[in-house]
């Protein structure tokens, strides 16, 4: 019998490389959360691969004592797809940002989700371009002033989770960089999910967009402006746990209510069903500050993964054409002998 593998600690997933994000960057917290998650789930460094594109977030692989590939801008999902198809046993994580994943790499993110390749995609959303020094991004709010939009941006922002749902993602979750209590568990859920899992992490860029999420991440405000949804549990939040979400009677939209007020009873509060796509759609599109930031596993509804289907065809071909040889292929069709 093999010796049981030694239990690894978060620090065992850290490299000796100096981490070069700006002091106070939200990425540090995410790095800690990921390293803890890997230790928690018993990941093995030799079968774990981090793939990234370009941007601040994409430096991530250099700091993980696993296999890592820092690739080109926006294309990490394509590299990851090739890797998973060749070796489905590898545990592949994609680290991307709102620029890398949704601007230059939007196409690949779309397709890795629709194909349902078994990877974890961590999209660090800071609503700004950090590495290129502060231009607005596709998730920046209208009116964002930046070096490239001195009068404010005029194009509507994209909701990453809404994009993922539209692309056919079967696992969608949202977190905050500093949510050290919840983040490792959320990542563990993403890891356990078979198929592509998409995790949007609100990440504070301390230099170019500091405080953009403060309205719901500030400790004093968090309880009344965040809701962590959990499958099978009523969607309640707030300091006293009395605020909740319910279907507005007679409509197909959600509303914030307070239990005990205006005749609202606990049974009126909607119970989270993470397998319900319609509910996921409603939750993802709730707008702050009218609604709380919806965090946690919003949607989880597994389906067949891509690499298994591909491998099944390979296996079927091998079975159907056992005894095939290149020589036979060359001699197939019409041949003739010259004497």
């Amino acid at each position, binding site marked *: 019998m093999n010796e049981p593998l030694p239990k690894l600690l978060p620090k065992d997933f850290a490299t000796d490389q100096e981490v070069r994000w700006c002091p106070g960057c939200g990425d540090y917290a995410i790095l800690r959360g990921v390293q803890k998650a890997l230790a928690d789930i018993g990941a093995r460094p030799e079968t774990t691969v981090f793939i990234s594109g370009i941007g601040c977030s994409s430096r991530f692989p250099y700091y993980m004592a696993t296999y890592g590939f820092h690739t080109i801008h926006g*294309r990490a999902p394509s590299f990851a797809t090739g*890797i998973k198809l*060749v*070796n489905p046993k590898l545990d592949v994580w994609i680290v991307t940002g709102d620029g890398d994943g949704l601007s230059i790499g939007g196409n*690949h993110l779309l397709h890795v989700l629709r194909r349902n390749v078994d990877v974890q995609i961590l999209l660090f959303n800071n609503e700004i371009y950090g590495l290129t020094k502060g231009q607005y991004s596709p998730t920046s709010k209208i009116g964002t002033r930046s070096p490239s939009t001195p009068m404010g941006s005029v194009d509507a922002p994209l909701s990453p989770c809404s994009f993922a749902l539209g692309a056919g993602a079967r696992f969608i979750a949202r977190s905050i960089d500093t949510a050290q209590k919840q983040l490792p568990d959320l990542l563990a859920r993403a890891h356990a999910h078979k198929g592509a899992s998409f995790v949007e992490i609100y990440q504070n860029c301390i230099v170019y967009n500091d405080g953009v999420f403060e309205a719901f991440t500030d400790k004093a405000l968090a309880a009344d402006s965040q809701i962590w949804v959990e499958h099978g549990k009523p969607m309640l939040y707030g300091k006293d746990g009395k605020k909740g979400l319910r279907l507005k009677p007679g409509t197909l939209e959600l509303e914030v209510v307070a239990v005990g007020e205006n005749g609202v009873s606990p049974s009126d509060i909607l119970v989270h069903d993470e397998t319900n796509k319609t509910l996921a759609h409603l939750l993802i599109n709730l707008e702050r500050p009218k609604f709380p930031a919806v965090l946690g596993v919003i949607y989880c509804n597994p389906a067949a993964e891509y690499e298994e289907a591909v491998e099944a065809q390979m296996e079927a071909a091998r079975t159907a054409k056992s005894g095939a040889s290149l020589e036979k*292929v060359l001699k197939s069709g019409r041949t003739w002998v*010259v004497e």
Partner: protein
Amino acid sequence: MNVIAAVPHDREMRELESVVVRFAGDSGDGMQLTGSQFTVATALEGSDLATFPDFPAEIRAPVGTTYGVSAFQINFGSSRVLTAGDAPDVLVAMNPAALKVNIGDLRAGGLLVVDTGSFNERNFQKAGYEANPLTDNSLAAYQVLSIDMSAMTLEAVKSFELSQKEALRCKNMWTLGLTLWMFGRPRQPIVEWLKAKFAKRPDIAEANIAALNAGHAYGETAELSGQVKRYAIGKASLEPGLYRTVTGGQALAWGLVAASELAKLPIFFGSYPITPASPVLHHLASMKEFGVMTFQAEDEIAAICSAIGASYAGALGVTSSSGPGIALKGEAIGLAIATELPLVILNTQRAGPSTGLPTKTEQSDLYQAVYGRNGDAPMPVLAAATPADCFNMAIEAARLAVKYMTPVMLLSDGYIANAAEPWKLPDLKSLKPFPVTFRTEKEGFHPFLRDPKTLARVWAVPGTPGLQHRIGGIERNYDSGHISYDAANHQRMTETRRNKVLGIANDIPLQTTESGNSSGKLAVVGWGSTYGAIEQAVRRARKDGLDVSHIHLRYIWPLPRNLGELLRGFEKVIVPEMNTGQLLTVLRSEYLVPAQGLNKISGQPFKIADILAAIHQTLGA
């Protein structure tokens, strides 16, 4: 090559050395099928041959228009045939537009066969004829055989009660039957093929066979009124062995499968459909039993990136495209060069720039292949000379990629991809294996440890315990592989990447001449699909007593190490290319030789006569 003469009909067949036949019709007329089946019948009779399919970019261009004309040319003979032929001896024109587009190429005195069934006012207009060209004496230079093939076909298949549309679709088989009769080729292989192709529609199969037989019978029963003779093309004296016909697309696919077995690595083929490169994807997609995984990516960039990911994970990554797609892959090629991962990049060139002429051939991606990336990004570049040569060159590209841990680009082109030639099947057992060893030893490991001789870095794949490492596009430290912004290190790494690729010159064959002496008055230097035209032209010139040699490059970068010396042994050098002088520039800059270009950028291959004329002109003979 006097083929056709208006002599009284007799049953004897006249012996000919070689003949060029072109089938031309509407893109819906099935001319490519007619041509390829005629090719099969010809090959089975032991002739040497070369073909040239020439079709429009539109899948179904408006019927009857000149831009919807599709043609297939075959040159076959009892002596060595290396090109699809300069000018057709026989032109089959299925409609006025096909006549209009192709008649200029038919040699004077050649035979023109037309389907009068489609020669009507409406089609004259569409083709831009003001009057019926069959009656206005404009075809006086040719032997014209006017047959209402449409009516004959309808008559032949009447008993099958097909729709008018389905019945007329058999017309190409009627034409094929007549042509087979003309050249004494057997019908049986076509009959078998039809039965297999239409296994689920036996009525269609039988109708096509009936049309084929009717066309053949039409020739045989002397209804041709003595206008046409039959011609016998003897067997070519090819090297003994088992043969088949092969296109460049097939040979690339099979070469990659052979390479996979020789390297003991599975092939991962990431590709995005593009003309004229897609046939390789199609062939490989049906070869899964060989461990070949094909991935139709969302775009060209994803195609190459998935292939690089596959190589990183321990497969042989391959991607394939044509010029515009290769342009999109440029950044990723740079990453493969920087991270020193093996990758085979197939470029089936077409006429550019931009979309250019997607179905027409050109060799204008040589600069792109050798120089077309940001930064100092050296990459080996190979070029196949013929359809069959694609098999060997695909293996060679894979060998260099894994041995030197580098992307390698293999150039083909639209002509090679679609043209067919007889191929003596290789003895697969004689191919030299090049099995790959992955790094597993932990002691002293870092990802950029190099083989001191080849300068190739170690290949350590994810999943290997203890070898966890990070690679990426940021410059890497020579001694650790960690990211490094150090100036001296960047100089050292850049020089190392250059020297690694240049060192491949010691691992490839010395350059020899295809024909002629290794020094003398004139060298004609070519690469890629101009091979046949140059070789035939040089042979003819040498027969005429001219001192000329043919040098054909299969290694474009690095160039063979003796090439400079070889070129300097000639008083003059001409470089025929289907571009404005790309290899020419490389040769002049590398060797300071006063080479001259001969350039054709019409989307059509060189004719032997084009090159022969240039040889004569250069030598003042």
